[in-house]
Each structure stands twice: as structure tokens, then as C-alpha cells.
């Protein structure tokens, strides 16, 4: 193998993409894209939503066909028209959505469609042994090959998905936001697996919105913007600011905007004491007007359950809540909305939007459901709301399924702004959206705080929680494990979240 003296790495790329272009309806989404992936390299692919990352990955995976350009694996030009061809060529893709069967075992999932046989029957033992071996190679000890998928945590399912990709003897694995569903400690697990894969000489194409992961994991970073490669260099040549600038094409003065002038925590608006249900227990907290309170915790620690209970979607069965000094016991989201409480849900597509409906129909949905008499006023307001949020779309009649994640999230925000909420609950408000849209969400949160709304934000992204919150509540096992002031460190949050150093629970 040739070694390039200057970089100290193999000089022959395992994957070389050049001049790759793709248009949809005459609209170019990828133009003249190029990248080189070397054996054992982790190559970060970043860019805003709609920058062309997914299109590039799907072309490599054989889901889309390219319009122009070349793809070479080991110097040989390849052309995939079907995902199976890509896998045979040694290129596996881990998509954001899991392609796993929940009621089948881990081994059955991994060997789906190519089960080892003995005569006419599936050789279960061989299949399970091979799976155990595969998992062991990746350093995974806590997943049994016979366990049902549904019994695993989201993180473990993600690992199964990756193990499945590896099992195709993949020399190149491309991963689309593999950590989107993972929390802190689980991300570490993924890091470990990626290290193992690197040691084996597997190359990884890594798409993520989380800058920290890019810097932690990647050797090289390629930045896409508007379908073109705008930068490609070793990761060490970037820092946060320069990477963000390359992605958005303009400097972002402050990633987390400062509180708007005149914002001050006022009277207590929402108070919980001794609240619990079948998933939560003994939750007490005070949320003041003009305050942004972050909620951190591991996946499954009860963060989502907390905001759902306050929103009446899965109400508390114990304890008491007051809103603006009066008893508040929402039995349904409808009750909560009548009290001007809003919930921006975690899963935008499944819970936040009616994907086949238009932008305007989605934006008016809350008002129409709960205050139909105010529909006219909300409709007249809508254009202002959309332009203040900078929603990018064809027109108000466009179906929201065709919008990018960031714009979809802005539509979700617009529908809640229409009821002028006094308490705003946000669950993972920036999941899967691009940097520009994230900043728009943060700016809106600051503005709402300035207007005297109380904001409770659940997030798995610690920099976000710490960057935006006046206080941080940390949850563990359905309880509040503790509270940290602004300026706390990620380590402090993690200690509380994981229960390290004997914090009471």
C-alpha cells in the first residue's frame, strides 16, 4: 500500500466521488460534489438540512441514481441502481430511521433474508453464534442475540442496526445521524464501536448535526452547502466557529443568543409539588415568567413524561400543580391549551405535524381545534409569524412534508404562537434541524422569555441546555435528581443524570 509521506495515511482512497450531480424536477440538489474516503478514516459530512447530505448518501447507497459524476470503490468505477448492489460492493448505510423488525430477535434481524440454513430450515444456532461473534467483535457484551428487538433500548437498537451494516462485510459504512436518538452515555458507546471499526480498517462516512461529535470522531470533514462542497479538510483545521461559518455561509455572531434586554425572572407561573404518575414520582418545581429552564437527563429518565404530564397528555395522578396561582389539573392537551400551555413535541413527524396538510392548515390547527372563533384573526396574523420565523417555502398551500426539518419545526412553532401561550414546553426543539433553524428556535425562545412567558426545555444536547437555560433541572429514574444554576458544566449535569458520586435520588 502506498503511503503518502506528507499525511502519513494511505494515499489510495477506498471511495472516490467526483463531479456528482443530481437534480429533482430541474432543481439541482447536488452539484459537482466530490470527496475521498481513505481506509480506516472517519469522514464527517456536515451541512444544513437541504444541503444535499442525504441525497449524497442515498446515491452512494443505491437508493437514488446520479445524474452525472463518478463513484469509484478501490479505483474501480461503480454504479448502483439498487441498495443490494451497494452492499455487495462493500458499502453499507445506516439510515436515520431504523429498518428493524421489533418482534424478531437480534440475530433474526441481522440475518434477515440471508439466514444460514440446514436443509430447508434456518440454522438458528449458527445464526445466533455468528451474531454473538459479531457483537463481541464490536465490543458489545450486553445484547443477547436471542433478545427481541422491542426489548432493547433505542441505543441498543441503533447498535444492532450498525452491527447489521457491518455484517455485510462492509468496508465502508455511511451513517446518517446515528446519535439523533441517543443521549450522553449512549453516544460514548457508539464512539467505542466506531473506534473498533476504524481499527479494523473500515471507513466511515459520518453525517451529524452535532458539532462535538464531528470534532470527537472525524479525521476529515467535508462541508456541503446548497448542494456543493464548500470545504473539505482535516478536522483539526476547523473550530466550532469556522465550521458553522462554512455550513451557513455567514458567521453566526452568537450560537446561543444572549437574553434579550429587559428579560427578568418574574412571578412564579407554574408550580409543581409532589407530582407523580406511573412513570414519575415526587416532582416539584417552580417555573417563573421570563425564565428558561432546561431539563436534562438520560433517555428514559422521565424528561418527556414530565412535559407530557404538564401538558395533560399523560396527566399526573399524584401531587398538585398551580398555574398563575390557581389549581391546574389538565386532563387532556385540550385543557392545557385552554390554559395557554403549549407543547412542542419531541417527534415532529409523528406528533407535531399533519404531514399531508398545508403549511397554513398546520399553523392554524391548534386555534381551529380549541378556539375556532379566533381562526380568522390567526389567519391574518400567519404571514407575519411565518416571515418573522423565516419559513422558507413555495407558498402557504405547500404540504409540510416537502419542507426541510428546520422549516417543519418553524411551522410547529407557528401553530403554538397562534394561541399566545404563557407556558411553553419544548421537547428536543432542535432535533434534526440545521444550524440556521436552531438559531431561529433559540432566538424565538429568548423573545418569548422577554415577553414574560415561562419556558421549559427538554434536550439531550447538553451544550444547548447549558447555553440557553437560566437553570437546569436534571432528571433520573422518573425523579428530579437535582438542580444546577446557569454556568454549570456538562460534567456536573452528567454526574446528576447518571447518579455518579452518590447524589440522592
Amino acid at each position: 500500500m502506498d503511503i503518502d509521506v506528507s499525511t502519513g495515511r494511505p494515499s489510495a482512497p477506498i471511495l472516490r466521488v467526483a463531479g456528482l450531480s443530481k437534480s429533482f424536477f430541474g432543481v439541482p440538489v447536488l452539484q459537482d460534489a466530490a470527496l475521498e474516503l481513505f481506509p480506516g478514516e472517519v469522514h464527517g459530512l456536515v451541512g444544513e438540512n437541504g444541503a444535499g447530505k442525504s441525497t449524497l448518501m442515498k446515491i452512494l447507497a443505491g437508493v437514488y441514481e446520479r445524474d452525472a459524476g463518478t463513484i469509484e470503490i478501490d479505483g474501480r468505477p461503480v454504479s448502483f441502481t439498487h441498495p443490494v448492489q451497494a452492499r455487495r460492493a462493500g458499502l453499507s448505510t445506516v439510515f436515520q430511521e431504523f429498518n428493524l423488525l421489533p418482534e424478531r430477535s437480534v440475530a433474526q434481524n441481522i440475518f434477515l433474508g440471508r439466514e444460514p440454513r440446514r436443509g430447508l430450515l434456518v440454522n438458528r444456532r449458527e445464526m445466533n453464534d455468528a451474531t454473538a461473534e459479531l457483537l463481541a467483535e464490536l465490543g458489545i457484551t450486553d445484547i443477547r442475540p436471542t433478545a427481541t428487538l422491542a426489548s432493547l433500548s433505542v441505543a441498543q437498537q441503533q447498535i444492532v442496526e450498525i452491527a447489521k451494516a457491518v455484517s455485510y462485510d462492509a468496508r465502508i459504512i455511511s451513517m446518517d445521524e446515528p446519535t439523533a436518538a441517543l443521549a450522553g452515555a449512549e453516544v460514548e458507546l457508539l464512539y467505542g464501536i466506531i473506534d473498533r471499526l476504524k481499527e479494523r480498517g473500515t471507513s466511515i462516512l459520518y453525517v451529524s448535526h452535532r458539532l462535538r461529535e464531528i470534532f470527537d470522531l472525524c479525521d476529515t470533514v467535508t462541508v456541503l452547502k446548497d448542494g456543493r462542497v464548500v470545504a473539505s479538510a482535516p478536522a483539526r483545521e476547523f473550530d466550532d466557529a469556522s465550521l458553522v461559518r462554512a455550513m451557513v455561509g455567514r458567521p453566526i455572531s452568537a450560537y446561543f443568543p444572549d437574553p434579550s434586554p429587559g428579560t427578568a425572572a418574574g412571578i412564579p407561573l407554574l408550580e409543581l409539588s409532589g407530582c407523580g404518575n406511573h412513570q414519575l414520582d415526587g416532582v416539584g418545581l417552580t417555573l417563573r415568567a421570563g425564565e428558561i429552564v432546561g431539563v436534562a437527563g438520560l433517555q428514559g429518565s422521565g424528561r418527556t413524561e414530565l412535559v407530557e404530564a404538564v401538558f395533560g397528555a399523560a396527566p399526573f395522578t399524584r401531587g398538585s400543580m398551580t398555574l398563575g396561582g390557581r389549581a391546574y389539573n389538565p386532563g387532556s392537551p385540550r385543557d392545557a391549551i385552554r390554559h395557554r400551555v403549549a407543547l412542542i413535541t419531541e417527534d415532529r413527524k409523528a406528533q407535531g405535524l399533519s404531514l399531508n396538510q398545508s403549511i397554513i392548515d398546520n399553523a392554524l390547527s391548534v386555534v381551529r381545534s380549541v378556539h375556532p372563533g379566533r381562526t380568522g384573526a390567526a389567519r391574518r396574523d400567519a404571514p407575519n409569524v411565518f416571515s418573522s420565523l423565516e419559513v422558507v417555502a413555495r407558498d402557504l398551500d405547500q404540504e409540510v412534508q416537502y419542507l426541510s426539518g428546520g422549516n417543519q419545526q418553524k411551522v410547529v412553532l407557528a401553530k403554538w404562537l397562534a394561541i399566545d401561550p404563557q407556558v411553553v414546553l419544548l421537547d428536543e426543539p432542535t432535533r434534526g434541524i440545521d444550524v440556521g433553524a436552531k438559531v431561529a428556535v433559540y432566538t424565538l425562545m429568548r423573545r418569548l422569555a422577554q415577553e414574560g412567558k415561562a419556558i421549559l426545555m427538554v434536550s439531550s444536547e447538553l451544550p444547548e441546555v447549558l447555553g440557553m437555560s437560566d437553570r437546569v433541572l436534571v432528571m433520573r429514574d422518573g425523579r428530579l435528581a437535582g438542580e444546577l444554576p446557569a454556568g454549570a458544566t456538562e460534567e456536573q449535569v452528567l454526574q446528576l443524570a447518571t447518579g455518579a458520586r452518590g447524589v440522592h435520588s
Partner: protein
Amino acid sequence: MSVATGRSAVLEQNRSPRGERVLRALRTPSGAIFVLVAVLFVAVLAANPSFGEPGSLIRFIGRTAPIAIAAIGQYFVIVSGEFDLSMGSVVTAQVIIAGNLIGQDEARALPVLALMLVFGAFVGLVNGLVTTLLRVPSFIVTLGTMLALLGLVLYWTGGAATGNPADSFRQIGRGGIRDVPVLEIIPYPVLILAAVAAGAFWLMRRPYGRTLVAVGDNAQAAALTGAPVWWIRTRAFMLSSLAATVAGIILVGYAGVHPSVGRGYEFTAITAVVLGGVVLGGGRGWVLSAAAGAFALELLFTLLNFVGVQSTWRDSVQGAIIILAVGAAAQNWQRRRRTAASPTHDPNRPIEAPRPTPGTTEGGT
């Protein structure tokens, strides 16, 4: 920023130009049905030019009215993500009620009419509540209602034609405004259909209608926006049964009173709705397209009749249409799904150089 969404910009203008919107609408399944109706109409005219005479045309519309009204009722249920199989039995039951309770006593016409409407609403209420609160699939619930009502009707009538309502009541279905220039007569069913269609169109633009479609699209999201999903769906079932009641009132007029009146109406209505591009499972399609679907269906049967196909083929044709329409919708749907990231996936398409589209701004938003 979002190159994939096409000609995009920060939302400022509310709407695209009207002409563009109409063209776009005609390319959706729910818009294409109007084109299909026009094509079928021309085909029928070619087979039998006298069909185009105003008098015969207005009678055709009157004949189709009960089916179109039933389709409008079925639309509400289907767009909310459910089914109403009990429709045909409701029609039958209402026809029998009218025939037996009104009899030749003109004075009883109005009270019985009121009773029929209450009965219709009640059947819908039961269908809706059992479906939404007991969480029984509507397919099963309304199948049960269908059989229960049918059994009741057969028990009551012994399976034979019974009763004959007063002539004034039958006039609703068979009468009309006479001595109209050009048309000779405007049948009442045409007016009733116009009123029902206008009402349905209006309702679908109201908060209730928009929420109904949102529930069909994503019930969980609708519930989290504060929509009382159970009550919204239940009202859709009530609208469906009421539409069946109206269809029944018209049918008493020109079909008479017999336990076979209304048989198969639920499937005809579902076929019309599906043909109107309304997606089974909910969340997509327009109410007037459902009515247009009924006209397309009747025009097709008329055409087949003129070219000498026996009417006994009706059920088979209808079955084939359901399968084809749903299949076509699924195809279309998949294509649109790919559009989501974006469209046109034709391997045979020649490679063309990317060309910037007018309005696509380079270098960011």
C-alpha cells in the same frame, strides 16, 4: 437553504397565482377526477348525442343525486381515517320507515321526516362512539350495524315490499320545479344535491372540516393540538348516516319501498369516494371530488349501457374500479413519497445538465 423544495423563498406572499394553483390541483388525484368526469361525459355524448340535451342531462343529475349525496357522507368518514359500511342499511331502514310510518296520511310526513333524521343521527352516533371510545375498528362496527339494521328491516317487512308513503312525500324524490325554460323541469333531488354539496363544501372549509382532515392524516398530532378526536370522528359518522338518510328520502320517491332499496349503497359510495382521489386511511382529498366520483361512476355505467354492456356487470366493474383506484393512488403516493426528499426517479431519463430554475437563489437564503 432548502434547494430541495423547488422554487422557494422566505414566505411572504400567501398564495401562488390562481392559474398555477388550479393547474397544480388538477394534477392531484382529487383534481383529476373532474377531468375524468369531462372525458367520460364526452365519451357518453359520442355514444349517444341525445344525452347532451338539457332535459335529459338534468334528469341524469337527479338520478345520480342520491349516490352523490351518499358519497359526500362517506367522504367525511373516510377522510377522517375510518369506514362506514352501514350506509346502505341506513338507506334501506329509512325507506322502510317512511313507507310504513307515513302511509297515506299526509299529516304524518313531517313528524316522520323528523324521526328519520333523528334515527339517522342516532345510528351515526352509535357507530362513532363504539369506534372511538371502545376502540373497535370502524370496519367491524359498521359491518355489525349494517347486519343488525338489515335483520331488523327483514323482520319488520318479512322481506317483501310493504307500505307506500303519501304521494307528497314521494314528490321529494320524483318531483321537481316544472315549466323551467330549456330544462323543462328541475328535479328536487338536483336542488337537494346542490344544497348538500354547498353545505359540505362550506363545512370542509370550517375549523371542523380542516380538523377532520388533520385527524385523518395524523390522529396523534391532532390530539396533541387539542382536537377532541373522538367527538370529531363521531360527528363524521353522524354526517354519513344523515347523508344516507337524505339519500333514502330521495329514493323513496323514485325507487319505491322495498327492502332491497339501498343495497350495496355503501360500496357504491366508497367506490365514488375512492375514485374521487380520497385516500383510504384519511387525510387527503376533497369533498366535491367525492361527489364528482359518483358522477364519474354513473357516467361510466351509462357509457357501458350505451355500448351494450349488460347492467349485471355493474358490481364487477365497481370492484375493479376500487382496486384500480386504490392501486393508482398507492402508486402515486409512493412517487410523491420519493418526492419528499425529491422526485422523478426515472432510470430511462436522459442525463441532463443541472440548470438553475428561475427563482432559485444561489448562495443561501
